[in-house]
């Protein structure tokens, strides 16, 4: 953090506006809250933890940020049982075994042989190590669905995120030349540890309101007719208020709109709803709830659809 950074408040305001318009240019509609957080990520170099329901574009934040910065995106998808060998690095054993065989007749000492087969040539770089080894500029590191990894991995990650260095016993310690921009996403399937949360900036992404969702649909599907877009968004916003087991995210709105366009529909009527219901509802029970929720009233009301 340098003194020059905060020289004028309007500079920050401008940068935030640049982020908003830059993201929108890349097809991602964002609000000032998220843009401010992104700005702080670039200034404070702290990781950003993004939480929210499924299908609201959490992962997309990192992808668009990479596009915006012109940086490389490195992605680590977390899952239960994720360990260091699939997240950081692994030795290429098959190649090592072959090398040992090939070297057999040579006059090298055991130490020389060992040094050879444990060199960079035999190292498989996994996402976290990749993000540290990047030579030219800071990459964007996306750690997706961190809540799925177990606590042990979370603790390891904490260490990595504070030092940005990895120790490989056979090679020594590698420091990051360019500290990555880190975005973590979580679906809150479990609470993350306090230590990790404290280290991160935080952003909660909620369901968008009507206006924002309209802007998203129009940005992502430029070819959509105004009336159809409005109907789809109002329909999904209505469905979202029903007590469904899997509430529809923005991804579902876009799917539904795309499906209607593919079917050549110009307006959303009960028949069209039936045909595209599978985009919005992901279980039999949910479909039944939507059907019995008085759709006709919504679809035929004069104000909207």
């Amino acid at each position, binding site marked *: *953090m*340098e*003194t020059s*950074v*905060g*020289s*004028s*408040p*309007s*500079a*920050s*305001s401008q940068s*935030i506006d640049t982020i908003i318009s830059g993201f929108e240019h890349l097809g991602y509609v964002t609000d*000032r*809250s998220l843009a*401010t*957080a992104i*700005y*702080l990520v670039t*200034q*404070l170099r*702290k990781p*950003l*933890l993004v*939480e929210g329901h499924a299908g609201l574009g959490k992962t997309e934040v990192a992808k668009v940020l990479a596009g915006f910065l012109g940086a490389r995106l490195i992605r680590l998808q977390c899952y*239960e*049982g994720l360990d260091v*060998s699939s997240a950081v690095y*692994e*030795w290429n*054993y098959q190649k*090592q*075994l072959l090398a*040992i*065989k090939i*070297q*057999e007749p040579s006059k090298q000492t*055991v130490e020389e*042989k*060992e040094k050879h*087969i444990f060199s960079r040539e035999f190292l498989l770089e996994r996402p976290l190590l990749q993000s540290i080894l990047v030579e030219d500029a800071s990459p964007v590191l996306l750690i997706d669905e961190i809540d799925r990894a*177990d606590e*042990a991995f979370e603790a390891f990650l904490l260490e990595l995120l504070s030092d940005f260095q990895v120790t490989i016993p056979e090679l020594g310690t590698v420091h990051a030349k360019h500290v990555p921009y880190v975005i973590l996403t979580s*679906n*809150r*399937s*479990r*609470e993350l540890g*306090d230590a990790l*949360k*404290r280290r*991160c*900036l*935080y*952003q*909660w992404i909620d369901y968008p309101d009507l206006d924002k969702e309209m802007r998203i649909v129009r940005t992502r599907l430029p070819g959509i007719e105004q009336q159809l877009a409005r109907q789809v968004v109002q329909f999904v916003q209505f469905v979202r208020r029903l*007590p469904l*087991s899997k509430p529809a995210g923005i991804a579902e709105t876009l799917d539904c709109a795309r499906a209607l366009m593919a079917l050549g529909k110009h307006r959303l009527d009960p028949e069209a709803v039936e045909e595209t219901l599978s985009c919005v509802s992901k279980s039999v029970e949910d479909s039944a709830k939507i059907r019995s929720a008085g759709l006709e009233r919504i679809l035929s009301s004069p104000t909207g659809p």
Partner: protein
Amino acid sequence: MQGSNGFAEGSDDAAGTIVAFCRYAREQGLAGGVQVTLAVLRAAVCLGMADRETLRFGLRAVMCSTKDEWGLFGEIFETFWDPVESKRSQRVLRRKQSRAIDDSDPNRSTQMSGAVGESQAEDRGRQDVAGASERERLRKADFSALRQDDLAVLETIALRLLRQMSARLSRRHRMTISRGRLDLRRTIHHSISRGGDPIDLRYHKRKPRPNRLVILLDISGSMSPYSLFLVRFVYALQKHFKQVNTFLFSTDLVEITHLLRASRLPEALRSLSQLATGWSGGTRIGGSLSEFNKLHARKLRRADTVFLILSDGWDTGEPEMLAAELAAVKHRVHKLIWLNPLLGLADYQPITRGMSAALPHVDVFAPAHNLESLMALERHL
């Protein structure tokens, strides 16, 4: 830190305000420490103080780390920065004061804290003399028929048994570890000295994976002879198992995981009884489950979650709803266990409407009226 914090000359005021705000936010319940305050200062330097909205968004990103805090932040920020809003803060203050008065009301905390605490010291002597037969009697005694002075003794026995039980469970985890995947890395390391022939094979140890436990405890009026003890049982479970989420329900559902985790048993019981007073006596098992499904279903994983309901099955809601919600839970968990204290009665038949609607979805239906029956739970965990 003043010199290097990046504020322009003479803006000590600004830094002071930020620090004051951090302190205020901490008082209002946001987590925070020196590290957070420093991060907030740095963020404020980046953002400048002029644009209130930008500052609000920025500080929210820095200071919050959960959805709950995210929700709280707006009001905290406004009450601090906008004097117009001070009315609201006064209201908060008043609410706080009235809560403080509640705290001091001794009658409130008696419901659940029962015999722990004051009688503990003198009981220590008695518990040593409690012979084997006495322990045996207590293990089989129905909780509802226990005398107050038995309770403390029973509790120490229970804690010891639970400790043993969790130790056994973790040992069982270790013993079932068979040989895992081949550890090529270590195998190769060892093979170098033999000219590269992998003679000794090395294996990965498989990581033990304890089950997740989700507990729903009924504290309605009909359960009151048992809930006193079951809460302690749940407390002990939560202390000894790593991944436990605990909920109380009667007409409403409330998560108490953090309460049980944060405090020692007497304090936990006291805060629980405060939480629970004022709840009406009826039971809405179906409604509570529905609420659970809506808000917490993501905590369930089919692979390894054990779902434990402690209830007598007296439901004032519709049995159809109970059955449907239970079926939804069943879909998402590994095992659904219903412990019913009434099952300990010799002539009890599970024919109440709620209970008979629930039974088809339950994997294990077992009694929970005495210590022995609770210990039998080990088999299912």
